[in-house]
């Protein structure tokens, strides 16, 4: 579903990523690791069309990113759930509306989806906070709300950037559990993290491959970690 072929990316200065090739197969579970500043976020942005490679080819759902219009990318985003490191919400709308936002912008009738929305909020443990505004949420609640928003359109692919970045261990286990559940439902998952404990914990439950960015290149890390 996502294919990168000899992709390089530079922000001006030197290249941050070079010669990256990868095929994300449906239903796979990947971790992406590497030191901070190594380009994990950039890599994810290449995967959801936020950035266009400076050289090489990126294909999202078999479409070359360079040939995609802004609206094509918007349509692709409806099939890719993204959880950002610093989750951004519409701060003037309550959490339930924020979680339903992808439905709203895609033109679905939010009323008729209210049952699904309630179940998802329940599943993420957000029901008691449904009417709170985003700035009132704790870090863990924000991460869960971002995850809920990322999956409400039932995307084929979930990209999560440090989803456990600012939550405690217990909360990170719950978030991981949510992502593993989603993977069991057939979603492709990629999690960028530098938390090796999280990766070890995940490996007990799911067949996960670990990609590591080092020296500007993407490598498949060994089975042992």
């Amino acid at each position, binding site marked *: 579903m996502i294919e990168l072929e000899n992709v390089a990316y530079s922000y001006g200065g030197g290249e941050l990523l070079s010669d990256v090739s990868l095929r994300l197969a449906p239903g796979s579970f990947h971790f992406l690791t590497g030191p901070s500043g190594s380009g994990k976020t950039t890599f994810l942005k290449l995967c959801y069309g936020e950035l266009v490679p400076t050289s090489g080819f990126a294909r999202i759902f078999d479409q070359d990113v360079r040939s995609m219009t802004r609206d094509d990318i918007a349509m692709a985003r409806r099939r890719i759930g*993204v959880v950002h490191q610093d989750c951004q919400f*519409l*701060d*003037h709308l309550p959490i339930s509306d924020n979680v339903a*936002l992808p439905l709203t*912008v895609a033109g679905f009738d939010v009323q008729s989806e209210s049952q699904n929305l309630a179940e998802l909020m329940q599943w993420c443990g957000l029901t008691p906070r449904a009417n709170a505004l985003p700035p009132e949420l704790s870090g863990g609640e924000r991460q869960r709300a971002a995850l809920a928003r990322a999956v409400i359109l039932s995307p084929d692919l979930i990209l999560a950037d440090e989803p456990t970045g600012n939550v405690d261990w217990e909360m990170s286990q719950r978030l991981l559990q949510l992502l593993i559940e989603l993977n069991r439902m057939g979603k492709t998952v990629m999690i960028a993290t530098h938390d090796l404990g999280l990766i070890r914990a995940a490996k007990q439950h799911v067949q996960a491959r670990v990609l590591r960015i080092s020296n500007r290149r993407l490598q498949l890390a060994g089975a042992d970690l």
Partner: protein
Amino acid sequence: MRAPRFLTDLLVADGSADRVVPPSGFTAHLTLFSAGVMAFLAVFALALSLATGRLADRWGDELAHASTVRISAPDDQMAVQTEAALRVLQTTDGIESARALSEDEQRALLAPWFGPEVPVESLPIPQLIEVIESDAGYDAAGLRMRLSAEAPGAVLDDHTRWRRPLIAAANRLRALGLFSILLIGGAMAAMITLAANAALAANAKVIEVLRLVGAQDRYIARAFVRRFTLRALAGATVGTVAGMIAVLLMPSQAEVGFLTGLGFAGAEWFWLLVLPPVAGLVAYLATQRAALRVLGALS
């Protein structure tokens, strides 16, 4: 193509696109206010151009078909020359009728200048002959030559000399009025573009979030476009009504002429109904352009 989309975007009660952009109290009031002021000014520019248009038409019509022959002669020849001139006029092609003004009529013409008590009989004032042309018109140069032969004291004044600058002035005023309306529209478009740019910049984070969850540019733009269009529509409606009331309250005494003729007559009031929708359309186009340009510039 544009009109139906314009209408569906505006009229379909899709509150969702509106809600995703946070409400903005202060700038909203400024947009309303400016649209109102512009509409108010447009009412006067419109009144000016319509009134001067009427004036130019009227002057054109009234003066085009009338000329005057003025006979200045010693008292004893006055009657003879008047007779001669009338004969010439009646035998000229293109002249429908010619008639010497009576003393009473001449006195009435002079009254505004000398007062009603002027003893016209005892003054050496010229005799006037009113000439009405047919639609075809007559040959002024030929007529002048024949008049000078038959009645040496007769002078033909075919009014073009002072009609032309008046009509030109009226037409110029009308053009200026229309041009002012264009300028007002342009200024409003510029103002709304600035306001929309400010709103888009202030909501950069909102746009980013919407983009992340798969909103297409048209959806994002709609939230802004709808808001500014409705504001301009509301502001312009208030401004137009205020301008209309101001025009109605102007003292209107027909005799004073041009200045108080500044207003609307009959079907011309209809043009006022057009102002608010036009303001809305201008706002729609300005915001749409601004929004799509700003969004298109994002990666």
